[in-house]
């Protein structure tokens, strides 16, 4: 199986134009939410309100927004540390995200885990561990269960260029290929792993390896939310059709340092300049302006929502120290993963059709 661009496959499958204007607005909104939340979180961090360190995905918003947008409520996701928009798409509220960053009792992990290390099982997500890319195997295992039970569900996870060097990348890719599982691997190639450039991680672009595992690898402009949606949509169709996994390489750029403390001296200025011209949000805004949408209005709404959310989170309580050792073990019945929000209009129409029949 040769590598192909998402566009190419898109044409082949005639899978273009899945997005209505409302969907394209949703994508913009999700990306704006991510950016505004992270901007605000960064200033809260500088004010000492966010403990530990802080990681963001500035400039990469399209990767998580576009991919998550193509996933159905019953699908399951492992969201990584540059993928805040995916949490938004699934229905996690900004208030709980701020509370999470600030280690409040009302955050997704209730202060047990930090910053971006979270996932809300109530919306079908399993929170990432720090060890990269361990979640590739967890996602593969979820897909394995779906296949065993004959369920029409797909698992998806993101992972970075650096984490492709870890053994778990290989064990997951190989396992998913051997068992032809309904799983989507989104490689977030943002040019760096902390300070380490690509050529120290691999001699050949990892998307080329998909074929060596027996499935499709596609390369997508990771700064184009709609292209990300299309590629993920197709990957999901393949998975549902029993054609196995897909690896999607989203080519993008980490526009901020690895974490709050990192001044990224090691990144050539020109490189950042180059990529700044390809901002995924400006790109989506331009598209929607052409379509006559008032994007300023949307940003204003987002900012308002974020202000309110931050305020609410700031006034929410810290966890009670007396609960610090609770819940190491589960007692009683395990909580099931619940379905998440799936705002793409296509799902509603599909649902409608099913209701009719």
């Amino acid at each position, binding site marked *: 199986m040769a590598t192909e661009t998402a566009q190419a496959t898109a044409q082949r499958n005639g899978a273009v134009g899945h997005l209505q204007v409302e969907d394209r607005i949703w994508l913009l909104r999700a990306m704006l939410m991510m950016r505004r939340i992270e901007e605000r979180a960064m200033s809260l961090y500088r004010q000492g309100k966010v403990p530990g360190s802080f990681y963001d995905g500035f400039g990469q918003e399209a990767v998580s927004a576009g991919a998550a947008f193509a996933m159905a409520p019953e699908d399951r996701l492992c969201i990584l540390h540059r993928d805040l928009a995916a949490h938004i798409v699934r229905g996690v509220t900004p208030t709980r995200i701020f509370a999470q960053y600030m280690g409040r009792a009302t955050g997704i992990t209730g202060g047990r885990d930090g910053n971006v290390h979270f996932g*809300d099982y109530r919306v079908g997500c*399993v929170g990432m561990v720090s060890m990269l890319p361990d979640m590739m195997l967890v996602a593969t*295992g979820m897909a394995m269960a*779906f296949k065993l039970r004959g369920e029409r569900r797909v698992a998806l996870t993101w992972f970075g260029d650096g984490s492709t060097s870890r053994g778990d990348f290989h064990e997951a890719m190989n396992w998913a290929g051997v068992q032809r599982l309904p799983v989507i691997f989104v490689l977030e190639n943002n040019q760096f792993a902390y300070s380490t450039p690509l050529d120290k991680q691999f001699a050949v672009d990892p998307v080329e390896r998909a074929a060596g595992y027996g499935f499709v690898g596609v390369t997508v402009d990771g700064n184009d939310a709609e292209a990300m949606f299309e590629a993920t949509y197709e990957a999901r169709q393949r998975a549902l059709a029993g054609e196995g996994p897909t690896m999607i390489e989203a080519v993008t750029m980490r526009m901020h340092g690895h974490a709050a403390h990192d001044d990224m001296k090691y990144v050539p200025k020109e490189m950042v300049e180059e990529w700044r011209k390809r901002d995924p949000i400006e790109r989506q805004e331009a598209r929607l302006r052409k379509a006559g949408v008032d994007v300023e209005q949307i940003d204003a709404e987002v900012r308002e929502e974020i202000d309110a959310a931050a305020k609410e989170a700031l006034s929410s309580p810290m966890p009670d120290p007396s609960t610090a050792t609770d819940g190491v073990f589960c007692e009683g019945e395990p909580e099931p993963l619940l379905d998440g929000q799936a705002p793409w209009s296509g799902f509603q129409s599909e649902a409608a059709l099913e209701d009719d029949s």
Partner: protein
Amino acid sequence: MAPLTYLQAISAGLRDEMREDERVLLMGEDIGVFGGAFKVTDGFVAEFGLERVMDTPLAESGIIGTAIGAAVVGMRPVCEMQFSDFISCGFDQLVNVAGKMHYRQGLAVPLVVRLPSGGGFSGGPFHSQNPEGWFMHAPGIKVVAPSTAEDAKGLLHAAIHDPNPVCYMEHKHLYRRVKGEVSEGVFETPLTARVARSGSDLVVIAYGAMVHTALEATEDLEGASIEVLDLRCLKPLDEDAILDSVGRCSKVVVVDEANFTCAAGAQVAALIAERAFEDLDGPVVRVATPDVPIPFSPPLEQAVLPSVERVREACRELLEY
């Protein structure tokens, strides 16, 4: 009631759970068509099919990691490590992903990892290890270690029904050497210690294969009344049972087959030194394998594994204390 070997009891337990609950999924290397390196799942494919008795790729991190994924979406995976030694290759997924999941985000990982462990048959440095101590030290993981056929089945039931990751230590040297009456059908052994023999002069605390070593070593010690406490569950540790035995016997020998430093026995001895100090009429004596890889050649292996003689000697000395 039928007399079963320890190994047959594990097989019987697995079969019962597979029949009772279709969420139970067996995963491992060569467990399907071949029936497992030790034949624990022999014949399972015929009854349950290749999908539920899954021959996996040779990838321990993959086995544990995908089992975690299956577990969080409602399966009840039971993973077999071909030898417990190989869990070192799946260590990260087990301690970091499975062990910390529920505490971090309230998501349970009902996962059992079967770990054929222990030495005594010239398995050498990579087929004889007792890794339980590593997992006792990892938060969020339970550890059980049956010593009898009855408990092998009962603890397997408990492990599979537990909503947490459980390391099920099955001692290879007991597979065919230990035989006993095992109740038919499904029953559960509580995650608590068991008094294997009650006594009043001294208690030997052990688990797994060492329970039998302890029983044999203390069968006839010049008429002394020796209690043997079989821990059965190492994490959480049955502290009450340990303190109760020490309270009644006042002298303690702690035996484990694992390497000495930071072993289960170290935790047990430390517990006693802190919480039963006033009950003690002598030092808390430990017998364990020294900090050495388990050698292959019989004379060397016999020299390092805790023997009946060493345990008897330790008891005799302590009785005279």
